[in-house]
């Protein structure tokens, strides 16, 4: 262990030099990096690493065991912030997936959450294909016209993403309103 401290001291001294050299592949640097990436529970280099919202690193099996130990009071072991299975982010290093088969891991590590970037191109709410909207308003005569026809100020919320439950509901609603409108028009013509 005395070696480790010497190595650390020399590694910090050499940090600038190895940074200039580009590829600082010395074992000193590697040792220091490993210490930086230790799991807060088993004190080993974190395997199947996950990081909490509060920024603390754990092996997923270690953290899972802790969450199971006190299911009613799940707190971060380091800072006691609220923590849960859904509130940790897995860390995927390069080449990490090749070393082990993730299916062998029990319990499975929570998946990363991937959000699509905001699509800002194009004029929102103009195309009829994807975001077709229809709205009816009911109100006292002169004002009702305005409320249903013009939306001053607040922009229309964008359509729910395809495939979600909200999207299905919106499609269903817009079909119902379409049929109501058709029936209304037919009634106006024939009545």
């Amino acid at each position, binding site marked *: *262990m*005395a070696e480790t*401290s010497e190595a650390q001291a020399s590694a910090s001294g050499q940090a600038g030099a190895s940074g200039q050299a580009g590829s600082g592949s010395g074992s000193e640097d590697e040792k220091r990096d490993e210490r930086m990436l230790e799991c*807060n*529970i*088993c*004190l*080993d280099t974190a395997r199947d690493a996950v990081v909490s919202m509060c920024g*603390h690193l754990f092996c997923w099996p*270690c953290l899972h*065991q*802790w969450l199971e*130990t006190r299911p009613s009071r799940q*707190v971060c*072991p*380091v800072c*006691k912030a609220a923590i849960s299975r859904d509130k940790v982010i897995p860390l995927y290093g390069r080449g990490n997936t090749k070393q082990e088969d993730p299916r062998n891991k029990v319990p499975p590590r929570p998946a990363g959450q991937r959000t699509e970037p905001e699509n800002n191109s194009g004029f929102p709410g103009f195309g009829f294909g994807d975001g077709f909207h229809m709205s009816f308003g009911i109100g006292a005569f002169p004002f009702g016209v305005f409320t249903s026809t013009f939306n001053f100020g607040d922009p229309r919320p964008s359509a729910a993403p395809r495939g979600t439950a909200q999207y299905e509901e919106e499609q269903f609603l817009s079909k119902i309103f379409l049929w109501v409108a058709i029936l209304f028009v037919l009634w106006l013509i024939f009545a």
Partner: protein
Amino acid sequence: MAAMSPSERRLQKELMSLMKEPPPGVTVDGEQASQNLTLWTVHMEGVPGTLYEGEKFVLQFKFTNKYPFDSPEVTFIGSNIPVHPHVYSNGHICLSILTDDWSPALSVQSVCLSIVSMLSSCKEKKRPPDNSFYVKTCSKNPKKTKWWYHDDSV
């Protein structure tokens, strides 16, 4: 080394770091601990400038194979049990991190530091008010006691 359980692996790492960089006034009996990783003896000296200056205490740590998910069983042993409002005369310690507030990120070192700090902040040497009753009725294992943590001042 490969046959070590996760708790033994972690205890081995902790023992190494505690022997290398012990907190001031704290020494671990490394030989005994490496013989039996589940039973450690830690020697502690009263911090100079506090009520316990010059006194020597002995702490015993017992670990289960669920460590670090399960807290260690920590008691004062030997002839000199510190006289402190949170330490019973049988060596049991009323300290929340030893039961309810335990976390696997804590370690022998942090427990030692907490106990040193608890002793050092003491203003008046006295036993807990319910000492004689507790000592007669308690279980041998302090973790079986339903501790009531109400006094954060010491």
